[in-house]
């Protein structure tokens, strides 16, 4: 246990939405530590605050109080622009709705995180094609999202999330919009390709079918972490 490197740590994270009468507290002081090099699942019933928590961890949302330490850097010490740059370099995203740009081919979509970091286009596209091969979509490289199935689009999204070798990968319900078979393919891909030494991978899900893929399961209920189980 002590040999594990902690990549992400939440320190008493509280999140409230709205103010005055309408104020609701969605996260009631979250304290968790997520190690690198394994697959962590964040599970719990719908509405318990999973998406809110990973939005905060990924730096898309500010906590009302508390702090998140990402690879020894407290987010609170990264002001505005710095945090955006940190995100561009270190975080990969996979969304339930894929969120691919419809006008771009699979390769071009995958290249975006590299382009954001200023990698020249030919080089970015070359690297993107390479990663597409890893997710076994090399033959679909020049197709538009609308020409791909849901499962294929999600695999493109995974390639996009990994192309710039982020240290943190967050996936929000990546299998929710997919049938059982495609869902399994996506989870296997995340296990085999995404989980790497030094990387934190957090997958949010309430899909019981995929619980087996996790090394660690963080259970939430009503804005609190109620249980953490680890396989090893």
């Amino acid at each position: 246990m002590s040999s594990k490197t902690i990549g992400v740590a939440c320190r008493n994270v509280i999140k409230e939405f709205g103010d005055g009468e309408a104020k609701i507290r969605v996260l009631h002081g979250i304290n968790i530590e997520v190690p690198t090099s394994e697959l962590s699942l964040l599970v719990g019933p719908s509405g318990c605050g999973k998406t809110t928590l990973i939005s905060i961890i990924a730096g898309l949302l500010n906590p009302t109080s508390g702090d998140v330490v990402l690879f020894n850097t407290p987010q609170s010490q990264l002001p505005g622009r710095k945090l955006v740059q940190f995100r561009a370099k270190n975080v990969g995203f996979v969304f339930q709705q894929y969120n691919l740009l419809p006008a771009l081919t699979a390769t071009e979509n995958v290249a975006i995180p590299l382009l954001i970091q200023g990698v020249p286009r030919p080089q970015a596209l070359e690297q993107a094609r390479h990663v597409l091969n890893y997710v076994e979509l090399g033959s679909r490289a020049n197709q538009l999202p609308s020409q791909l199935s849901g499962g294929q689009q999600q695999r493109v999204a995974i390639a996009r999330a990994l192309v710039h070798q982020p240290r943190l990968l967050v996936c929000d319900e990546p299998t929710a919009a997919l049938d059982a078979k495609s869902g399994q393919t996506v989870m296997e891909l995340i296990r085999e390709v995404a989980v790497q030494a030094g990387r934190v991978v957090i997958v949010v899900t309430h899909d019981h079918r995929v619980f087996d893929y996790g090394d660690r399961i963080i259970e939430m209920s009503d804005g609190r972490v109620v249980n953490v189980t680890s396989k090893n």
Partner: protein
Amino acid sequence: MNWVAWKMLTGDRAKYFGTVFGVAFGVLLISQQTSIFVSLMRRTAATVLNVRDAQIWVFDQNMQNTEEVKPLSESDLNRVRGVPGVDWAVRFFKSQARARNLETGEFRQVILIGLDDTTMVGAPVKILAGSLADLRRPDAFMVDKAGYEYLFGVGEPIRLGRTIEMNDTRGVLVGVVDVHAPFETFPIVYTRYSQAVRFVPPERKVMSFVLAEPEPGVPPREVCQRIEQATKFQAHTRNEMLWFQVGYYLRSTGIPINFGITILLGFVVGTAIAGQTFYLFTVENIKQFGALKAMGVTNLGLTGMVLLQATVVGLVGYGLGVGMAALFFESTKGLTHLAGFYMPWQVAVLAAVAVAVIIVCASFVSLRRVWVLEPAIVFR
């Protein structure tokens, strides 16, 4: 990221063309309407525009436009000539008259211009057939190109020597000229002053205008002032004359109000269409901008993307719109009754400014939505 912005814009062909055509249509509306208005107003000043070789116009104090002439007497010419600073001054005759085509017997209302017999000041510059010298021949007259068709029939090949009759006096066609078309669809008949007075029923006073030129080095405006003081006539420079005439139509007819409303509507509709289409384009892409924002594109980067898209849409839309307007005027140029309608470059500039303002405003409104966008919406 500029490349991504370009792809987002042009990737969906239908949406791209829809947006560009929205802007183009707005530009077309603005430039077309404004051009027609300006052209129409210029047509009212055709008489003034057609005199190229005199800088000063002198005429009766009570005249309000160049159509309703209140003639001066012959001795008044000498009074103008006597004003210090006047280099020369000559007669200029303008009146409406009735002409009869002697071949068909048909009557036609014409604008009759009589040029000073010796100097021919005020003569047309562009002569399409015949020569100015022929105007010195007995009974000679020239007519503008559109007027030739009005008098002798549309599509008739130009044939000199044809005859008309005005006030029981025979006129022989010696030339066809190209001049600014007048507001009314009347032929403009050019002849010598001495001939012109015989083409209309006799009157006590006949001299419609005095055309004058200042001595070299004396500003025309100053000479006008001296003439007005010495004679109590009105004296205007060429440019003032233009506005004198256009101003009369603006003040005294319904054209500016009605047309102004039309132009305003064109502007409002054009602006609304152009701005709305671009705004909608951005709003429809808001989720995509959100995803890019989550992936680490800064607000500055997103601003660059939106502005690039706006610039492309603005430029292409403007080019198409102005192009269509120009094409319209270019293709109607040859039609007799549309002669003189054109797009002044000022209108093209005005449309460009309008589009720039519209697009900047639309971009700004769109950008506000992009700036305040919570990147966390990508998880929703």
